[in-house]
């Protein structure tokens, strides 16, 4: 019943918001829903740990949760809670300034729960077909969210997002069908085979190799597009920079990882069927390429949010490459990295949101410097977040990145480690340069802007993830660690 | 360790007196070679006496560094002298510092003299100390290297040890490396004592002077101390040159006879060296300031060559 409730909760919230009139109620419903959702997610991961390793299924195996999905569920819950907290002051202010109409306001609060629900369905669905449907649903909700502001740029971003995403999804569907067909090819024509991942995995070795290869390639390109792997990433900076900040946070914080998750499911199948050679190296190659490509764009970036988007690109690349190396340490590191990144990135997007609402631009040259003076709180949190995502201690991304690279070294991927390090350093240089230029400097330099008016909500929304990040860096509960290790084991095909 | 006081006192006295005599001698000979009668050999004593009795004028811009310099110049060169074997092969205080200490002490004196030159805010002082320091910055390493050359052969940086080592059989006088080192050392000597191709102690022509420019503001007993210190330094360097390159006749065991002999030898060597210096001064013209570094870097290179060669042909 647990999984169902996890799924239905946001759906219910969304529907309720569809009919609820007063705005306060909308906000309250969202907050409540996601808070409870977080509770349920925690409960889920406890139960998953409890029946150690064995997956937890419901509705006749329609829903299935193993360590990997439990971990993802947790991430989704946390990020969407943070986003919904931040959304309160953000949208209020937008409404007050007439940037969004009342209708769009409601639209946001209706769509966001559906968005979350879709992502939850992705991670909890057992059937690959259903998973695809869910991903598509996620895409559709998020498109409307991206287009929320209805400006030229946001429409353009939305269009690119939906068209590129649509292309990717069609390819992914194609791949999914091939997988299914591969199953049929072996299991005799006459019986209707199940489309469930667990069954497919069980009979993976007998699947038709050629079809599986074809399927994996199509899925890689397809879901890779959604996950923002270079060179299919081109929609990513547009969408992330044009969406309202809470949505950007959810997009880059989890929805990318959801796509990676979907990809991983196929990756596991392919590895089980074909032996991990091809799929691993493809993943590794795309990951490294993404990391390397992110660097130059960040070095000469003009727009704060786009820069953040590119840094997400880099982190996605890191995760994929880490999984591609397929050593126990690297995959564990990838899991760790997913978590830490999901905690760190939203903070930055929130800060960017504050800056945008204060100064109505995200262009570095227009912003000038001295934000440390004009909007100290945001500046402080932005700085901390930047420190975190650029992989500096005391924040966890340092640990996870180093874990991945070290894992690469002992599994004889020395060159990969070196390339990763180089890419990380380049990105760091870009981030440092831009962020330092933004925060430091005399405050009066930019036409005496009023000191920021920052509401407690957004402070909470920004400082909470950072606090958790710091906490989980230095004190990682054994239960979480076990969860991640099990997830890693699943990915490495040895559950 | 053996601190025999009489020896120390003797050498101190020797340094104090012989230094003045030596500079007097050189001045006299130069005069003679210029067909002048020149001042008597003991003229420096009289100068000193005069300076001591004069009143002093101290620049109003000068700070507490200004009076420090004369004492330091005097003391450093004097105590440097005590590290050098003059008559006895075992320098009285040789144990407490070798070549490095010697060079260091002289440098200390120069350091403060340069500061003293800067202190009274006159352009000349600054000019003088700038030039002095720059030139010595090249001269000093050259000297060190020259000494190192011997230090390696002797396996010690203590001057007395070098001299003693040279007494033992199997020590070849002036093998090529030593010859090179000697020439380098001699050039350094000219530079450090402000002799002619580098500097002209006799003139106060503002644009050419180096050493004198620093002393411009000093008067009375301060001037006396500085001059005295300078001449002691000159003596020390010449003795060093004489004794470690031609270590003959130094008293190895301590008897009056050997001491007398050593004293004579020392006098002889110094006279010869002084002669050479005078001849060089008479036959060369003073170099332009910015040609001097070339000369000194020649010395530096020679010394380095010497060092390298000891080390290759062994």
């Amino acid at each position: 019943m647990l999984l169902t409730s996890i799924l239905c909760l946001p759906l219910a919230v969304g529907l309720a918001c569809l009919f609820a009139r007063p705005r306060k109620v909308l906000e309250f419903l969202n907050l409540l829903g996601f808070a409870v959702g977080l509770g349920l997610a925690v409960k889920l991961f406890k139960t998953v740990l409890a029946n150690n390793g064995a997956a937890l299924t419901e509705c006749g195996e329609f829903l299935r949760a193993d360590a990997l999905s439990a971990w993802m569920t947790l991430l989704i819950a946390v990020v969407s809670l943070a986003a919904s907290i931040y959304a309160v002051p953000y949208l209020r202010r937008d409404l007050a300034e007439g940037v969004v109409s009342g209708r769009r306001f409601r639209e946001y609060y209706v769509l966001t729960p559906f968005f979350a629900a879709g992502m939850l369905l992705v991670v909890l669905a057992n059937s690959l077909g259903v998973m695809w449907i869910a991903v598509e649903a996620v895409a559709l909700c998020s498109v409307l969210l991206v287009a929320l502001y209805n400006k030229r740029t946001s429409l353009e971003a939305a269009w690119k997002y939906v068209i590129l995403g649509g292309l990717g999804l069609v390819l992914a569907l194609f791949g999914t069908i091939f997988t299914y067909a591969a199953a049929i090819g072996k299991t005799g024509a006459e019986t209707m085979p199940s489309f469930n991942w667990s069954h497919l995995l069980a009979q993976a070795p007998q699947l038709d190799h050629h079809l599986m290869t074809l399927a994996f390639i199509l899925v890689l390109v397809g879901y890779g597009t959604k996950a923002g792997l270079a060179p299919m990433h081109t929609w990513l900076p547009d969408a992330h920079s044009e969406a309202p900040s809470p949505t950007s946070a959810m997009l880059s914080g989890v929805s990318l990882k959801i796509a990676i998750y979907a990809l991983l499911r196929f990756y596991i199948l392919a590895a089980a069927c074909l032996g991990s050679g091809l799929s691993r190296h493809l993943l590794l190659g795309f990951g490294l390429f993404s990391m390397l490509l992110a660097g130059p764009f960040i070095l000469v970036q003009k727009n704060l949010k786009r820069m953040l988007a590119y840094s997400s690109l880099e982190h996605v690349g890191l995760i994929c490459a880490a999984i591609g190396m397929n050593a126990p340490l690297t995959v564990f590191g990838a899991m760790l990295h997913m978590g830490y990144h999901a905690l760190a990135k939203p903070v930055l997007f929130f800060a960017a949101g504050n800056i945008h609402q204060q100064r109505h631009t995200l262009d570095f040259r227009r912003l000038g410097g001295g934000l440390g003076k004009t909007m100290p709180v945001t500046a402080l949190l932005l700085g901390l977040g930047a420190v975190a995502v650029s992989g500096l201690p005391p924040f966890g991304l340092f640990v996870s990145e180093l874990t991945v690279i070290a894992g690469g070294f002992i599994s004889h991927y020395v060159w990969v480690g070196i390339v990763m390090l180089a890419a990380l350093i380049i990105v760091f240089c870009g981030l440092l340069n831009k962020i330092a230029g933004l925060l430091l400097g005399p405050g009066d330099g930019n036409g005496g802007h009023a000191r920021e008016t920052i509401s407690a909500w957004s402070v909470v929304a920004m400082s909470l993830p950072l606090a958790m990040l710091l906490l989980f860096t230095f004190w990682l509960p054994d239960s979480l660690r076990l969860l991640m290790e099990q997830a890693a084991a699943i990915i490495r095909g040895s559950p | 360790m053996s601190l025999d006081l009489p020896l120390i006192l003797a050498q101190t006295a020797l340094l104090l007196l012989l230094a003045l005599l030596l500079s007097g001698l050189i001045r006299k000979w130069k005069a003679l070679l210029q067909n002048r009668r020149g001042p008597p050999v003991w003229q420096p004593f009289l100068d000193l006496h005069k300076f001591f009795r004069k009143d002093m004028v101290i620049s109003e811009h000068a700070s507490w560094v200004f009076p420090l310099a004369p004492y330091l110049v005097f003391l450093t060169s004097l105590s440097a002298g005590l590290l050098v074997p003059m008559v006895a092969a075992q320098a009285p205080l040789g144990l407490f510092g070798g070549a490095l200490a010697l060079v260091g002490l002289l440098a200390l004196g120069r350091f403060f003299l340069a500061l003293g030159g800067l202190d009274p805010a006159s352009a000349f002082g600054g000019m003088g100390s700038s030039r002095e320091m720059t030139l010595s910055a090249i001269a000093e390493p050259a000297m060190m290297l020259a000494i190192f050359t011997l230090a390696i052969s002797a396996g010690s940086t203590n001057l007395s040890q070098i001299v003693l080592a040279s007494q033992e059989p199997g020590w070849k006088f002036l093998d090529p490396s030593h010859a090179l080192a000697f020439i380098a050392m001699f050039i350094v000597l000219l530079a450090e004592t402000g002799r002619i191709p580098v500097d002209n102690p006799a003139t106060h022509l503002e644009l050419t002077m180096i050493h004198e420019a620093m002393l411009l503001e000093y008067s009375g007993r301060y001037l006396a101390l500085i001059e005295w210190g300078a001449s002691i330094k000159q003596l020390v360097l010449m003795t060093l040159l004489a004794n470690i390159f031609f270590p003959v006749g130094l008293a190895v065991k301590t008897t009056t006879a050997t001491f007398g002999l050593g004293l004579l030898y020392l006098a002889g060597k110094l006279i010869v060296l002084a002669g050479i210096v005078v001849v060089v001064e008479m036959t060369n013209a003073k170099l332009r300031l910015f040609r001097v570094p070339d000369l000194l870097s020649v010395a530096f290179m020679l010394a380095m060559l010497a060092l390298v060669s000891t080390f290759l042909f062994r």
Partner: protein
Amino acid sequence: MNPDAIQSASNLITLLASVMLVLQLLLAVQSMLITNIRLFALQSFLLAAIAGVVGYAYSAWHVLVVAALTVIAKVIFLPWLLERQVRQIKIEQEIRPFLNMPASMLICGALTVLAYVVARPIPSLERLGSNTLAVAIALVLTGCFLMINRRTALTQVLALLTMENGVMLAAIALTTYGMPLLVEIGIFFDVVVAVMVLGILVFRIRKTFASMDVSKLNELKW
């Protein structure tokens, strides 16, 4: 069920599939929007027909359901929707594509060949008509090319839909009985919603940019 029925069925399927491909090629060179939409409708109809044949030949009823869905969704509803759009924004003529007709024909041909190359080595799946798979892949590839080549927002939507047709064709052709009904229905639902969303976007773009030329959407860069 008697083998020759199956045999004829598979022949029929092959025929229909190849006709779909031909329609696709026509789409690639046709420049009137309305005609494009109609071509697409026809193509979808053929798809439905294939589904019907399969369902009939193998007496797999839910495939018939799929066929029905296809007819409703892709032959009637979506074309109607799109045509309404076109009428609203009063643009019948396609904007000049990047590549002219012969070139695009050439490329489509090449893609089809590639599709056959990719599809050949797959054994044991040609129960339903030979080279249906190849056709499916070809549809997807050419559809993708169509997307790249056309400038109009609507045509891109159309191309996306034709790709989707190809996928469904594969779904029916490869998997004896189509996919589980739930999944099928879900996919249809998603596609319809997707097209509606796209429609909304096209409308808004039309309003803000006063044009349907998506190559004008290039403010966001770097």
